[in-house]
């Protein structure tokens, strides 16, 4: 800004300059008139003094006369007369030029003396004075003694002075002899006195008149001065008034502009949806902020709040530290703002507000920082805050649903290979089992024995779930159940047990519950899909899709994928041929055989005849026995060839009614049969019996060992075998139903499990 570029202050600068100039001009005028006024006063004073001068001259002349009469010395009196006459003469000369002398002897011009009237009066005075001077002249020129030579020594001088009484010149004391010059002096004095007496009044009057005129002039100047002062005062007041008016108008204008601007700002801050505020260098919030901030931060009072205290209560400490570090970074002078913005850690920050009803309300806030520069240097940070909870939740939901969809797709691919009825059955049974596990856990326990007692019960339930999941090929469920079993094994091996040891179990149980819920959801969707397609079919179209789903739901899932077009009429009965459990067992046998590099052919009969109340138990039992047979009984193709058997092992499951008394379930295989020596060996290794006891066991007792908890001849623990819970489960299930287990085996030829179950009514009665 240049020095003359006054911008919005131009008006005020001009107004003040005008005021000052006017003030100085009035001051100068005032000063000038005041000077004139002083001159007039000096003039009046001078003229007043001048008025007395003729009297003084006359007095001095009289003194000389008296001295002469008294025969005294006259030199000093003549000198006094000369002095007064000279002074008066000078005064006249000065006045003729319009000048007077002040006290200090300086000459001052008095304007009033220059006007015509004054000049005329002065001319009259001068004329009289001229005559006066002519009368004075012989006296003033006198020198020496006026007395005759023989005259006596002068007596003491009589008092002199202008006030001394004048004695008649003609009278002289006897004995005073005047010289001829003395007599001429005396004569001149007589003439002078006569003239002085005649002219004194005239001269005084002239002085008085002149003084009066000067005084008049002085009065005029005084009036002018007053006028100027009043005029100046009025002008100053007027200017001041103008200034006030100007200021008031400008102020009002500015006030209106700024008030409008303030109102607009307030409107913006009240209406804007973003939280807006400024942060200073001390990270304090500015006084102006948007109303949205109250809603976003759920508080009204932001006075003297720092950024730190704004966030402290709503974010974890780690987030707070990151936020503060980032804001500090923004204050650096040499910072690339765009670059720094890309690493904004508060882009989507999770905050938690205390909920008055207890707990937290979680929101997501988006902070944006802009560096505000003033005069080239960083003065503030403008912070914009948005509540982006909905956006974040939507995007998370989307992400979660995508992840879930992926997981469900995997799950779908798995369950597409499972018969729907089997799957529904499994889910129901597994849910019951897991709830049973939870019930067992819930039983109060304080003593170690109570804790230990829980393990076996839980084991059986989990093992059943695992077995069935394996049979259905539900790998994800099987793995989870297997992990559960491992935890149980770990607990079993511990010397002491407490509730804390059971914590991993509840976590795994929770996981299983969750997973089964997912499978259930998936199944539900498939069923919904079926209904939807069925609905479309009734209205025509979608025949192929509907048939595919029907196929799958009917259990012909493997063919579903290959199905290209709908054959003329698919017999419904055919689809129902392979029923739930049989299908499950076939799949199980095939899968276990495949994982053990074996070949097996399963033949099931009578499984459709299983009474409803036995279905679950029969399923659990046959799953365990079929798996056991494939793992332990059936040999590998090589071994079978060597033993002169067909490569494919045979496995039969038969369920038959035995009169009214009950049912018989037979599971047999043409494998290697029970290896009694190996059974004894393992039983000793696992501490189930001592070597001495082993030596005493007969074949029947030896075979019974396989039903003991924890017995397994498998070398290592896999999801198929190894923990020795399977046969125990069979034993318990049969016992629970009031049945019996029979076992026959011939080494190298076969094994046969024969289970007798009472009819359901008898079982209830029992």
């Amino acid at each position, binding site marked *: 800004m240049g020095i003359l570029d006054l911008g919005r202050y131009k008006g005020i600068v001009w107004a003040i300059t005008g005021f000052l100039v006017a003030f100085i001009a009035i001051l100068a005028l005032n000063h000038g008139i005041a000077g004139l006024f002083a001159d007039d006063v000096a003039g009046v004073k001078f003229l007043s003094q001048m008025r007395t001068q003729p009297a003084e001259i006359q007095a001095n002349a009289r003194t000389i006369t008296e001295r002469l009469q008294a025969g005294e010395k006259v030199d000093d009196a003549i000198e006094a007369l000369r002095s007064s006459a000279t002074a008066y003469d000078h005064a006249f000369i000065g006045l003729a030029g319009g000048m007077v002398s002040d006290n200090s002897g300086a000459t001052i011009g008095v304007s009033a003396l220059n006007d015509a009237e004054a000049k005329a009066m002065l001319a009259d005075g001068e004329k009289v004075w001229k005559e006066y001077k002519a009368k004075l002249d012989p006296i003033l020129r006198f020198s020496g003694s006026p007395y005759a030579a023989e005259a006596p020594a002068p007596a003491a001088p009589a008092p002199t002075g202008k006030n001394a009484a004048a004695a008649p010149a003609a009278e002289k004391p006897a004995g005073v002899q005047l010289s001829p010059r003395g007599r001429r002096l005396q004569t001149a004095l007589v003439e002078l006195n006569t003239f002085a007496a005649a002219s004194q009044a005239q001269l005084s009057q002239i002085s008085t008149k002149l003084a009066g005129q000067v005084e008049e002039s002085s009065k005029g100047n005084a009036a002018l001065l007053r006028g100027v002062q009043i005029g100046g005062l009025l002008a100053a007041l007027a200017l001041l008034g103008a200034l006030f008016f100007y200021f008031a108008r400008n102020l009002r204008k500015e006030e209106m502009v700024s008030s409008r601007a303030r109102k607009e700002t307030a409107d913006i801050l009240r209406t804007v949806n973003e939280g807006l505020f400024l942060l200073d260098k001390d990270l304090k919030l500015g006084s102006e902020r948007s109303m949205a901030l109250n809603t976003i931060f759920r508080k009204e009072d932001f006075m003297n709040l720092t950024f730190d205290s704004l966030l402290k209560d709503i974010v974890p400490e*780690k987030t707070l530290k990151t936020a503060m570090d980032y804001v500090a970074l923004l204050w650096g002078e040499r910072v690339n703002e765009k670059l720094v913005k890309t690493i904004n850690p508060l882009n989507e920050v999770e905050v938690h507000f205390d909920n008055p*009803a*207890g707990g*937290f309300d979680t929101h997501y806030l988006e902070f944006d920082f802009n560096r505000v520069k003033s005069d080239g240097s960083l003065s503030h940070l403008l912070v914009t805050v948005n509540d982006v909870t909905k956006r974040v939740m939507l995007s998370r939901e989307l992400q979660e649903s995508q992840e879930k969809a992926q997981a469900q797709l995997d799950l779908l691919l798995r369950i597409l290979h499972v018969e729907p009825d089997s799957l529904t059955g499994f889910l129901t049974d597994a849910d019951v089992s897991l709830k049973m596990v939870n019930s067992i856990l819930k039983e109060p326990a304080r003593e170690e024995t109570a804790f230990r007692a829980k393990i076996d019960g839980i084991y059986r339930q989990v093992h059943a779930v695992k077995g069935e999941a394996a049979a259905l090929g539900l790998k994800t469920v099987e793995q989870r159940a297997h992990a559960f079993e491992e935890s149980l094994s770990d607990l079993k091996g511990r010397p002491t047990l407490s509730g804390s040891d*059971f914590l991993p179990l509840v*976590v795994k149980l929770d996981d299983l519950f969750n997973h089964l819920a997912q499978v259930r959801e998936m199944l539900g969707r498939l069923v919904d899909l079926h209904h939807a397609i069925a609905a479309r079919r009734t209205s025509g179209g979608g025949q192929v899709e509907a048939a595919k789903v029907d196929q799958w739901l009917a259990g012909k899932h493997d063919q579903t994928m290959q199905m290209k077009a709908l054959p003329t009429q698919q017999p419904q009965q055919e689809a129902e041929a392979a029923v739930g459990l049989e299908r499950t067992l076939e799949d199980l046998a095939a899968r276990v055989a495949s994982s053990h590099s074996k070949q097996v052919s399963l033949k099931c009969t009578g499984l459709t005849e299983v009474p409803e109340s036995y279905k679950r138990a029969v399923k659990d039992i046959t799953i365990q026995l079929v798996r056991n047979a494939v793992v332990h009984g059936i040999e590998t193709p090589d071994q079978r060839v060597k033993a002169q058997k067909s490569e494919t092992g045979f496995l039969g499951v038969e369920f038959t009614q035995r009169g009214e008394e009950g049912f018989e379930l037979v599971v047999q295989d043409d494998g290697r049969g029970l290896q009694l020596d190996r059974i004894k060996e393992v039983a000793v290794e696992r501490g189930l019996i001592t070597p001495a006891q082993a030596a005493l066991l007969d074949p029947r007792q030896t075979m019974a060992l396989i039903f003991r908890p924890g017995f397994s001849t498998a070398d290592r623990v896999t999801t198929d075998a190894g923990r020795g819970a399977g046969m125990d489960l069979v034993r318990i299930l049969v016992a629970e139903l009031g049945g019996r287990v029979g076992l026959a085996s011939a080494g190298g030829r076969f094994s046969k499990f024969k289970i007798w179950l009472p009819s359901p009514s008898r079982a209830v009665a029992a």
Partner: protein
Amino acid sequence: MMTKVELETFVEGTTNYFATAANQPASVGSPYIVQEGRPTVQEFTGLISIAGKRRGIVYFTASRPMLTVMLMRMGETELTQENMCDLVGEVANTISGNARRDFGKDFMISVPTVVAGEPEKIVTPDNTRSFVIPINWRSHSAQLVVCLE
């Protein structure tokens, strides 16, 4: 999914309190899950809310007889409702302290609140199973309930 370590942290916080403040250690009972409905709430409950990496509530709930004995063991003669509230609040506070120490800075843990009776005031997150861990002390049994998403 809830982890074993998280459960252990809360349990440890509770048992620590008994070992130090109540002058007699408590034993942990057999834990179980509450799938539907409300987990157990006894007469006095000290509750903390958790946010951040996990969200939900953790509370310690005990009966009046148990708290009475605890107060007596602690040398407190005034067996008032106020003191019992303070006691469950303190247990909740110890749990919170333990959680702060173990879970680090990713969590936000509220100050404990105390509920006397009024089980409806204890709101667990929707569709979330609760873990109930019985805390046995002398002949009494309190519960630690962990319900986190």
